[in-house]
C-alpha cells in the first residue's frame, strides 16, 4: 500500500468524479479539482461563501457547490472553466441540493420542505414539486436515472409520487399505507420501491413501479422498529435493520423473510472467526525492527501499533447500554452494506460500536466478526472486490477480505485521524479524510488482475 502526500480540505468535502478521473475537494470557499493520477490541480474555482456541499454531475462535467446559509448554489464546468452558473433560492432558503441523474437539472429542497425546485441548465424552465416530506430519505432516483420517487405529506397522509426524470412528468401518485413514512429506496433494478415507516412502528412496504402494493412486512409490534433498509446490488435481497438488534433479509420472489441475523453478545460458534484488534505500544529501541519503524514513521513514535488476533470460540462482545431517557437510542442496526458481488453483508449494531459483523450471503450465516479497539466510524466496500475498508478515528486504516484482515498505519507526519474514507470507483485507491486533511491510499493490485 502506498500513500500520497496530504492535502487540506474542509467540511469532509472530497469527492471522486463518477468517471474516476478527478478528485474535487473543498477548502473553505475554494473548490479544487485534481487529477486522480497525478494529483495536480487542474482547476480552482472560488465560490461566494464557505462550501457546505459538493456533488459531481453524473457525466463528470459539472460540479455543484451548495452554500445553504446563503441559499445559494454555484455550478462549475470542467470543460469550460469560465462558464458559471449561480442559483439563488432567495427567501425560501435551502436545505438540500442534488443533481438529477441526467446531470442537467438540479433539485433544491427549500427550507421547511416547502417545495422541491427543479432547475434546468438547458432551458430557463423551473418546476416546483410541492409537499415534499421531511424525512430520513424522502427522494430517491432509480439507478438507471429514469424515475424519481418522492415522499409527500398531504392532509396528514403519506403519498408517493413517481416522476419521469426525462421531462419531470408525474407518472404515478399513490397513498402509502404508512403512519409516518420515514424513507424510500428503489431496488437497484429500478422496479421495486421499498418504503418504511417511522421507527415507532415496524412496517416495510414494497411498491411496484406502477404503484401496486406488492407486499407488506412487519416483524413485530409495540416496539421500536425499522432503523435502516438496504438493497443488495442484485436486487435479490432486502436487508432490514431494526432496533431489536437484528437484520431480517427478505427475498425478491415472495417478499417473505428468508432469515434473521442476530447480533448476540456472546459468540459461541467456533466456526465464526473473530478478529480482535490488539493494540501494543511500540517498544522503544528494543530491537532493530522497532528502531527502523520509528525512523520511517517519524511522527508515529508514540503511536500505538495494532494487529489482529483471532479470538478463540466463546467471545464476549463489548456492549454499551443505551440511555433509555434519550430519543433515538443507540441500539439496533443503523448501518449495513452489501459487498459489490452480493457475497457479503457488513452490519454494525449501534450498541456494539466496536464490532463489525460480516455475513456470508450464500450460506446465510455469520462469517466473520471484526472487533476494533475503538468504535467503528465508517466502513465501505471496495466497488470491485469483496474487500472492506474500515476506519475508527485513529491513524489506521483496516482492510478485510475473505483471506484475512490487516491494519495499516497511515504514514503521515502529525496526527492523521481517519474519520471517513471513500473508495475510488476502480477499487485501486481510496481517499482517507481526517478532520482537515486528506490523503490517498493506493492498493497494490495483484498481478494479472489489473
Amino acid at each position: 500500500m502506498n500513500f500520497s502526500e496530504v492535502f487540506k480540505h474542509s467540511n469532509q468535502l472530497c469527492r471522486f468524479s463518477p468517471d474516476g478521473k478527478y478528485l474535487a475537494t473543498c477548502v473553505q470557499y475554494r473548490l479544487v479539482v485534481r487529477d486522480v493520477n497525478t494529483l495536480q490541480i487542474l482547476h480552482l474555482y472560488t465560490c461566494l461563501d464557505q462550501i457546505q456541499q459538493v456533488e459531481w454531475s453524473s457525466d463528470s462535467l459539472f460540479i455543484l457547490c451548495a452554500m445553504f446559509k446563503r441559499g445559494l448554489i454555484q455550478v462549475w464546468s470542467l470543460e469550460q472553466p469560465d462558464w458559471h452558473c449561480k442559483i439563488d433560492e432567495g427567501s425560501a432558503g435551502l436545505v438540500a441540493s442534488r443533481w438529477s441523474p441526467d446531470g442537467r437539472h438540479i433539485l433544491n429542497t427549500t427550507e421547511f420542505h416547502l417545495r422541491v425546485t427543479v432547475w434546468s441548465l438547458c432551458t430557463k424552465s423551473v418546476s416546483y414539486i410541492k409537499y415534499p416530506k421531511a424525512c430520513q430519505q424522502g427522494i430517491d432516483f432509480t439507478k438507471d436515472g429514469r424515475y424519481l420517487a418522492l415522499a409527500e405529506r398531504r392532509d396528514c397522509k403519506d403519498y408517493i409520487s413517481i416522476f419521469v426524470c426525462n421531462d419531470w412528468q408525474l407518472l404515478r401518485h399513490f397513498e402509502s399505507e404508512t403512519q409516518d413514512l420515514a424513507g424510500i429506496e428503489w431496488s437497484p433494478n429500478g422496479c421495486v420501491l421499498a418504503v418504511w415507516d417511522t421507527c415507532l412502528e415496524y412496517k416495510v412496504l414494497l411498491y411496484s413501479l406502477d404503484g401496486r402494493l406488492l407486499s407488506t412486512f412487519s416483524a413485530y409490534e409495540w416496539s421500536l422498529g425499522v432503523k435502516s433498509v438496504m438493497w443488495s446490488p442484485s436486487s435479490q435481497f432486502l436487508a432490514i435493520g431494526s432496533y431489536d438488534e437484528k437484520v431480517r433479509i427478505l427475498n425478491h420472489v415472495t417478499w417473505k423473510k428468508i432469515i434473521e441475523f442476530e447480533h448476540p453478545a456472546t459468540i459461541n460458534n467456533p466456526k465464526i472467526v473473530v478478529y480482535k484488534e490488539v493494540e501494543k505500544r511500540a517498544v522503544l529501541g528494543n530491537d532493530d525492527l522497532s528502531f527502523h519503524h520509528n525512523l520511517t514513521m517519524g511522527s508515529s513514535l508514540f503511536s500505538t501499533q495494532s494487529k489482529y488476533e483471532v479470538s478463540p470460540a466463546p467471545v464476549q462482545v463489548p456492549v454499551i447500554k443505551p440511555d433509555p431517557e434519550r430519543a433515538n437510542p443507540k441500539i439496533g442496526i443503523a448501518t449495513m452494506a452489501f459487498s459489490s458481488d452480493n457475497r457479503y453483508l457488513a452490519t454494525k449494531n449501534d450498541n456494539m460500536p466496536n464490532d463489525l459483523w460480516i455475513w456470508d450471503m450464500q450460506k446465510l450465516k455469520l462469517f466473520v466478526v471484526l472487533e476494533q479497539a475503538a468504535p467503528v466510524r465508517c466502513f465501505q466496500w471496495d466497488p470491485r472486490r469483496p474487500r472492506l475498508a474500515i476506519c475508527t478515528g485513529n491513524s489506521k486504516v483496516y482492510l478485510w477480505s475473505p483471506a484475512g484482515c490487516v491494519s495499516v498505519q497511515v504514514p503521515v507526519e502529525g496526527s492523521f485521524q481517519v474519520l471517513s474514507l471513500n473508495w475510488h470507483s476502480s477499487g485501486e485507491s481510496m481517499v482517507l479524510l481526517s478532520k482537515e486533511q486528506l490523503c490517498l491510499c493506493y492498493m497494490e493490485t495483484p498481478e494479472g488482475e489489473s
Partner: protein
Amino acid sequence: MYSSYTSRATSPSMLYTPPLLHCSQPLSKNSYNILNAFCTEENVVQCISYINQEMSSLGIPIISNGSNGKTDLNLVSVLNTIYELLQLWRKSMRTMEDMENQQLKSNSDLDHLHSSHSKVKEQLELCKRENKALQERDRQLQLKTKSLHNCLKNEKEEVQKLQNIIASRATQYNHDMKRKEREYSKLKERLHQLLMDKKDKKLAIEVLNYVGRSDGKRSVWKTGKTEARNEGEMYKVLLSDYEHRQKDLMVENAELKKVLQQMKKEMVSILSPQKHSTKEKIEDSLEQTVSDCEEDAGEHGRENISLELSCEDAREQLTNSIRQQWRRLKNHMEKLDNQASLVQMGAQNEKDLISRDIHEEEIEKLKLEIQQCKDLITNQQQLWQQQLSCPCDDETGALLRDCYLLEEKERLKEEWRLFDDQRKNFERERRNFTEAAIRLGHERKEFEEDRATWLKHQFLNITPFVDRKKPHTAKSHSALSTGLDLEKQNLHTAPAQQNKVTRHTSLSTPKSSSSSSSLKMPCTADLYRTLCLIPDKSSPSTQPKRSSLQDTNIKLYSSQLSTPKPRLSITSDDSYICSITGDENRL
C-alpha cells in the same frame, strides 16, 4: 374368708374374733398372758363349741364331738386341726405376699403409666399449641391474600384507568398532531403563497449560457402523447424485469426438475432389485409390483412430456409419481430397518444362548478333565506307593528302557528319512543350477558370436564394398530402438529367433522385475489408485503379471491425459506383448 366371718355375726364372742383371726402364732401365745384371753377355765365348753362351729364352717373336722358339755378333747384331732390351720395360714400368708408383690408391681406400673400419661398430655398440649399457632398463621395469611387481592384489584383498576388515560392521551396526541400538522401545512401553504406572490427578486438562476442536454436531444413538449409514451416505457421496464425474473425462475425450475427426475430415476433403480427379491419371496406382491413396473414405464413417458410442456396435469403426475416412489422407498427403508433391528435382536439372543451353552459345555469339560487329572494323580500315587513298597526287579526295568530306546530309534529314522529327502532335493536343484549355468554359458557364447558377427558386419559396413548386407543391419538396429517396432518385428521374425527371445525373458524376468519394480512400483500403484483401476478382490490375479502391467503403465501414462477411455481396455495379450518389448529394451 373375711366375708365368711362377717356372715357369722351371730356368735357370742364375736367381739374377740378379729384379734384371733388377725393375730399370728406369737399373738396366740401372748393370749395366754393376757387376762382376758379367749379361753378360760369357765368358758372352755363354749370355746370348744365355738371352735367346733368355726372348724366345721371351715370344713375341718371338729375337735371334739362331745355334744354333752364334757370336755374331752381329742389331742390327735386337735393337733391335726392345728396343723391344718397352720397350713391354711401359711397358704394364706403366701398368697398375701404374692398379692402384695403384685400390688407393688401394679403400683409401679401405675406410676409409670401416670408419668407417661403426663408426658403424653404435655405433648398433646404442645401439639395443640402448635396447631393453634398454625391456624393463626393461616388466618393471617388468608387475611394477607385477601388484602393483596384487593390491592391487585385496585392496581388492575388503576392500570385500566391509566391505559384509558394513555389511550385518551394518545388519541388526543394524535388529534393534536393532526391539528398541528394541518396548521403547519397551512402555514407552509401560506408561506409558499407569500413567496410566490412576492415575486422574489432573489429567486433566480444566472447562467452564462445554457448547456445542451446530456443526450444531445432537445426537450419535448408535454403532451398526452408523451404521457402515453412514459406509461408505455414504464410498462416496458416492468415487463422486462418480469421477463428476466421469469427466465431466472424457469432456469431454476428446470434445474430442480432435472434433480427431481434424477432422484426419481435413482429411486427406481434402487427399488427395482429389491422388487425382484420380494417377487421371489412373496408371491402376493407379485401382481402389485408388476403393475408398479408398468406404471413406471408409463410415467417415464409422461415425465418427458411434463419437462417439456410443464402443464398442470403433467406436473401433478410427476409429483404424484415421485410421491409414490418416495412412499415406497420409505416403506422399504422401514422394512429394512425392522429387519435390521430383528436381525440384531436375534443375533444378540443367539449370542447369549451360545455363550451360555459354551459356558456349560466348558464347565462340563473342565469338570471331566479335573476328574481325569484326579484319577491320574491317584493312580500315580498308587504306583509310587507300589514302587516304594516293592522295588521292581531288573528285568522289567530293562524292558522299559528298551521300550524307550526303540521309540527314540524310530524317531531318528524318521528324521534321517526327512534329511535324505532334503538332500535329494538339494542335489536336484544343484543339478538344475549347473544346467542353467551351462545353458547360460552357451547362450553367452552364442551372444558373443552374434556380437562378433554383428561387429564384423559393422566393420564390413564401414568398408566400402558391403552394400548388400544393409537390410539385415537395419533390422538389428530396429530391434534395439523401440518396443513398438519390435512388436511388429516379432511378428515378422522367424520363430526360432522368437523362441530365443522368449527364453531370454524367462531367465531374466526376476531380475528385470526386481530392478524395474524398484523404480516403477510406486508409480504404478499410484496410477492404479488414481485411475481407480484396482478392484480390491482382483489384486491377487494381477500380481503375477506385475512386470507386464508395469510396462503397460508407460503406455497408459502417455494416453492418460488425452483419452481416458483406453485404460479400461487392458487385456492380457496386450500386456504380454508389452512385457516382451520391455525386456528387449532392457537388453
